[in-house]
């Protein structure tokens, strides 16, 4: 059975509202009205509660009728969409199936932006959301620019992949606070060289150096979605946390949104590793004025603090090229764009030959004539 879906409708014309990063408001593309997030939240708080109640009642009814949630019957055969969730579009009525971790999406038939209700109720609700600051146009432009400077990019690649399919996604992140107590000893040397007569005299002073201290961290981000490659999410850091807002679904319309499928405990190891490496670096950087400095003893004790759950804005484009999948991600707040690109072997060889052969000719004239 389909789940009831919430979408924010314009109080003036009932058209769908989108969150616009540039204005920071929910805007109606039909009548052009714009509303503050708080204003719409207030208007829809009651409506959302009612929708959830209705969904719960529908689930009970389905149970009584012997139907399982997310189970359909077609041509007499049973289909169990494991890991999927069904809902109906409130705008056109289409029956849609989405990933069970999808919290916000848009209807492929009418384009209506929707929040899938209940997605944040059976799990931990996000503490914060970092709203999109850059819109789709900026993301498309950034991706075009990203392609431009790449000398080894096959020409057909940028033409064949559909930049306009880039999607704004709120990616779930765990933000870890904590402290790292580091105690490190080093063997360090200072070297002085003097010349006396025909002798070079090298004096090496040996030191035993110790550094101990605490490094405080706030909000080390680790993406909480198994669907998102860690390398991509790490590479678009950092996010500016000063723009974090208390979570509200009002920021989600117009974008896709995932909820976490890797819990805070599972992801904590990555935050620990990063905190540990940084603490050692801080200690090492405080040892100055030596020619050599080799750690002889390292001890780092981590104290985990508060963990916050936040949705971070990411523009994403996944595209296929000659059987390989290429994923691009852009920080929806800062515009930092990353992604692996295919390499044209012909262009690579062209560059190699184009540099080496003329240079050989020039050097031959200069050195080998």
């Amino acid at each position, binding site marked *: 059975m389909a789940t009831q879906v919430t979408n924010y409708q314009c109080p003036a014309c009932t058209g769908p509202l989108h969150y616009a990063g540039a204005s920071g408001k929910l805007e109606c593309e039909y009548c052009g009205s714009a509303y503050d997030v708080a204003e719409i939240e207030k208007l829809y708080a009651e409506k959302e509660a009612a929708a959830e109640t209705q969904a719960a009642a529908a689930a009970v009814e389905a149970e009584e009728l012997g139907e399982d949630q997310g189970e359909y019957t077609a041509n007499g055969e049973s289909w169990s969409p494991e890991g999927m969730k069904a809902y109906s579009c409130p705008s056109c009525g289409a029956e849609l199936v989405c990933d069970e971790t999808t919290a916000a999406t848009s209807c492929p038939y009418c384009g209506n932006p929707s929040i899938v209700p209940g997605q944040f109720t059976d799990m931990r609700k996000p503490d914060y959301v970092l709203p999109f600051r850059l819109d789709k146009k900026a993301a498309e432009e950034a991706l075009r620019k990203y392609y431009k400077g790449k000398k080894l990019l096959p020409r057909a690649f940028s033409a064949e992949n559909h930049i306009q399919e880039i999607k704004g996604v709120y990616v779930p992140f765990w933000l870890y606070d904590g402290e790292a107590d580091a105690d490190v000893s080093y063997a360090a040397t200072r070297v002085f060289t003097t010349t006396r007569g025909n002798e070079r005299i090298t*004096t090496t002073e040996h030191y035993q150096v110790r550094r101990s201290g605490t490094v405080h961290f706030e909000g080390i981000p680790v993406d909480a979605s198994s669907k998102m490659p*860690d390398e991509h999410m790490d590479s678009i850091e950092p996010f500016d946390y000063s723009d974090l807002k208390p979570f509200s679904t009002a920021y989600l319309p117009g974008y896709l949104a995932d909820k976490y499928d890797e819990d805070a405990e599972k992801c904590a190891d990555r935050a620990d590793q990063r905190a540990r490496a940084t603490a050692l670096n801080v200690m090492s950087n405080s040892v100055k004025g030596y020619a050599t400095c080799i750690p002889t003893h390292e001890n780092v004790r981590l104290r985990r603090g508060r963990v916050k759950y936040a949705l971070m804005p990411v523009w994403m484009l996944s595209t296929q090229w000659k059987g390989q999948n290429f994923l691009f991600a852009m920080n929806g707040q800062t515009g930092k764009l990353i*992604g692996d690109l295919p390499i044209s072997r012909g262009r690579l060889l062209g560059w190699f030959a184009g540099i080496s052969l003329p240079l050989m000719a020039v050097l031959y004239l200069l050195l080998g004539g």
Partner: protein
Amino acid sequence: MKKKSILSLLLALCLVLSLGGAALASNQITMPYVTDAAGLLTNEQVMALEAQAKQIAENYGCAPYILAVNDFRVYEDTYDIYEAGMNLYERWELGYGPEKNGLLLILSMAERDYALVTYGSVTHRAFTDYGQDYLYEQFLDNFRNDDWAGGFQDYLNTGSWLLEQAKNGTPYDVNTAPRGFNPLIIVIPLVLALAVCLVLTGQMKTAKRKTEAGDYMVPNGVEMRVVQDIFTHRTVTRQVIQQNENKGGGGTTVNSRGFSGKSGKF
């Protein structure tokens, strides 16, 4: 010493007699250009080399000599084959013309020693230090393979070529020698092209896992409890500074006796 000088003279006389009247000129004993007391060459080879050496001497005014002996110490009271070569050159009054231009290559088979001594302004102009090194390269590989005739042939051919270069006004030296193929011509462009391609390839792979969290350190969030630097001990090493010989200027190094050359093993 006296005994050795007599032996040396006897050797010279024997060599002159073995060549018959051709070795005699006026009232003075004229040394042959090729003397094989070690029995390395056939008579035909000796005759051919002698003729070639004579031709070179007449063409360029510089006499190239070859002396192969079993042990040079029999003839000279010295352990230095180069010194023995200079002594013999002077004692036998070798060289062409009044200035005694010439060069003597000695092979001593007992311990496989060789020496090349050069003398006279014509010789020094043609056989620069750089040119001598080139000359050694030509014949030493033959001698190392016991190719005696081939080595002597290379000695005369290369010597003739060096004299020809000097005669034409461009002695073979550091600045005038034809340069061989420099491997840097290949290596530098390949390394540069590889570096550029690696940079370009790196631009295509931008997604990397982060290992640090420096961006998320709390401002002023580092509390250092222990900052301790303890001096433990001192070590001292002494190294003698090597004085590098400067051979980059070209020309010919001539010693106080007016000779140039080199000795070594083959």
